[in-house]
């Protein structure tokens, strides 16, 4: 064992780490996931404008759709990253942006007695979701050394 062999083994470890990180958290998520999950969010928010079983059904449909889409992305990459291998700040900022948009728009709609305020707030959140997901995912996928 010499220094060259040790250096190449360390480089291999590092390179393979990064390879899995890139695979598990691609810089660009598939469009079907972005739009599908935005639809799920809008549907969940729109359930505020419905009552009874309809509202429950909408929430459940949205939840099932979101989980199925997340599982499908995971199946397409073949990798589930460890929690600590990912950058969570961009994800948290993304969530804050979406929730803020929904709260602000929803509050304004209620203030002016606009009907279907939940649906409109959900659409606003979905627009922010679609617009912000790309940059947030790009920032979250920046390689992080966990070795």
């Amino acid at each position: 064992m010499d220094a060259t062999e040790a250096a190449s083994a360390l480089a291999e470890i590092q390179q393979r780490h990064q390879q899995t990180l890139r695979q598990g958290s691609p810089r660009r998520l598939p469009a079907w996931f972005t739009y599908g999950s935005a639809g799920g969010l809008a549907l969940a928010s729109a359930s505020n404008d419905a009552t009874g079983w309809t509202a429950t059904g909408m929430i459940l449909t949205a939840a099932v759709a979101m989980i199925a889409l997340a599982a499908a992305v995971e199946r397409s990459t073949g990798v589930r990253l460890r929690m600590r291998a990912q950058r969570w700040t961009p994800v948290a900022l993304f969530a804050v942006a979406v929730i803020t948009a929904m709260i602000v728009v929803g509050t304004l709609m209620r203030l002016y007695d606009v009907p279907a305020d939940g649906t409109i707030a959900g659409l606003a959140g979905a627009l922010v979701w679609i617009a912000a997901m790309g940059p947030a995912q790009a920032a979250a996928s920046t390689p992080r050394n966990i070795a």
Partner: protein
Amino acid sequence: MTNARPAGFNELLHFPVRLSLVSLLAPAAYTEFSYLREATGLSDSALSKQLTTLQDAGYVEVRRTGRRATARLTDTGRHALNQHAHALRALLGNALDPTHTGEPTPANTGEPG
């Protein structure tokens, strides 16, 4: 150059294909068999053989559900990989340290620094 093996050096993990596999598994909660096969370019049988070796050592856990197979690094495997990486760094550090190569230094020649 030295043949010394620092503490933590793991002969089993140092084998190139196995080192690649555990390094691929390290950042993941689990990966699919197909990902490991594509990443390493190994055949199904060669990959199975290496994973079985790692599994026997307690470093990797393989799960099969229907046609889907996934692999994950166990805590023991993660610890062994970290120890191995540490040993490799120590080996590199020793190689860069002139006191370990026998080169003359002010300290061992008595010359002023």
